[in-house]
């Protein structure tokens, strides 16, 4: 069967059937305008962004489920080959952890009795919101994740986000039902960290690669390969003491960090609500 379209009025512009060049030109101008506007005022279109993301959340969440199941299956199958090796490793690790468990129990009771003795007042405990990751920009420009929890669940802009083993990033946008997490591997991510057991402060800077770099290390201080890094709590955005990763020496005296959490393959994350720092104010947006 042969078909011929009769394009009339606005549908001519939309489908570009009659004047394809003109229609393309119009949409290029529109895209350029949008790009310029969002470059000059990055925050002005945030509501549009969060509303649209909220709108698409159910779709993403539904489609995400079978994909996750398939991914789990692939991981399970590809893991079968190294099952025996993995088992031996886990058995060894378990033996070691049992020893640590005894030590931890002892230290905990000792710590509690010392707290009582000193009558110390500590900041209130943090609460967590657990959320499923439904979207993942994972491209070469932006490293961010979309999670299924928003302001209605108590998630607000600026909160720290952790996954199983350590910090993964912070919330940069929160809609009603969804929030966007800027991963610590992103080019724009900066997290103040502290080398555990020392007083060496530094800033963890993302570089769109799997290993973020340690920036602004104080001169003359010696850092050990494999040193554990935790959040320093400076700036008030990240609470003190969240595990981050291990320092790895790179070329040319630069230091990188092997992060505890794998920010590239997230399924669930925990958003830390530490009550917010009353000294924190949002500054003016910079174009």
């Amino acid at each position, binding site marked *: 069967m042969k078909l011929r379209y009769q394009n009339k009025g606005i549908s001519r*512009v939309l489908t570009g059937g009659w004047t394809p060049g003109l229609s393309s030109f119009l949409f290029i101008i529109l895209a350029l305008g949008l790009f310029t506007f*969002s470059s000059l005022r990055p925050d002005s279109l945030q509501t549009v962004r969060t509303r649209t993301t909220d709108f*698409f959340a159910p779709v993403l969440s539904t489609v995400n489920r079978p994909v996750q199941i398939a991914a789990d299956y692939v991981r399970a199958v590809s893991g079968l080959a190294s099952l025996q090796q993995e088992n031996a490793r886990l058995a060894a690790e378990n033996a070691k952890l049992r020893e640590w468990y005894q030590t931890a129990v002892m230290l905990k009771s000792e710590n509690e009795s010392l707290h009582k003795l000193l009558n110390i007042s500590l900041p209130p405990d943090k609460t967590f919101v657990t959320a499923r990751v439904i979207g993942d920009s994972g491209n070469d420009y932006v490293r961010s994740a979309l999670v299924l929890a928003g302001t209605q669940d108590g998630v607000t802009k600026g909160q720290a986000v952790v996954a199983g083993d350590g910090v993964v990033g912070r919330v940069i946008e929160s809609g009603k039902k969804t929030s966007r997490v800027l991963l610590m591997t992103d080019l724009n991510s900066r997290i103040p960290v502290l080398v555990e057991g020392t007083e060496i402060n530094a800033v963890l800077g993302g570089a769109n690669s799997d290993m973020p770099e340690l920036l602004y290390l104080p001169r003359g201080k010696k850092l050990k390969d494999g040193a554990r890094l935790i959040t320093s709590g400076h700036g008030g955005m990240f609470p003190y003491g969240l595990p981050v990763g291990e320092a790895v020496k790179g070329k040319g005296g630069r230091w990188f960090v092997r992060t505890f959490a794998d920010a590239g393959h997230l399924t669930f994350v925990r958003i830390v609500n530490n009550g917010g720092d009353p000294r924190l104010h949002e500054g003016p947006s910079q174009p």
Partner: protein
Amino acid sequence: MAFRQLNPQTMARLALPQFLLAGLVLLSVLSLPLPYAGSVRPCLVLMAVYYWAIFRPTLVPPFLCFLAGLLMDILSGMPLGVNALVLVAVQWVVRGQRRFLMAQPYKVLWAVFGLVVVLASALTWLLFGIMQRSWAPLPPLAGTAAASFLLFPLVSWILIFVHRTLPAVDSRNY
């Protein structure tokens, strides 16, 4: 024959490319925690836009390219307008050359797609750099471009399959 005179089955068949495009947009923003995949994301939507711009440009017109790009921008956290601009521009340029491209064997189409991926990546990189005032590292971009080039046969196989189920059309209107 006008659109309203088409029977529902023909309409559904004509909507297939749009559904496929929506599926590819979703696939490019979904969380895919696959092992060994790293952060390489092939440009799936670009493949569909390229293919339809050559063979059935009215089914995926500039308006749909703009919409798909805008959705990708919003859902993936990119600066607004970047993907929208790139997709509309690609559709425009490829559509201009479609008479030449349609006459070419598949290998040439594949090679030209390689060129399109490189140009589209360069444009995205440039726009992103202008907006962020810092340039994204280039090696991962090359990886993504290579992955897109290598995956083109697989996606185009699906596109060709969909193309064959579409009703024939009088090309005088293009």
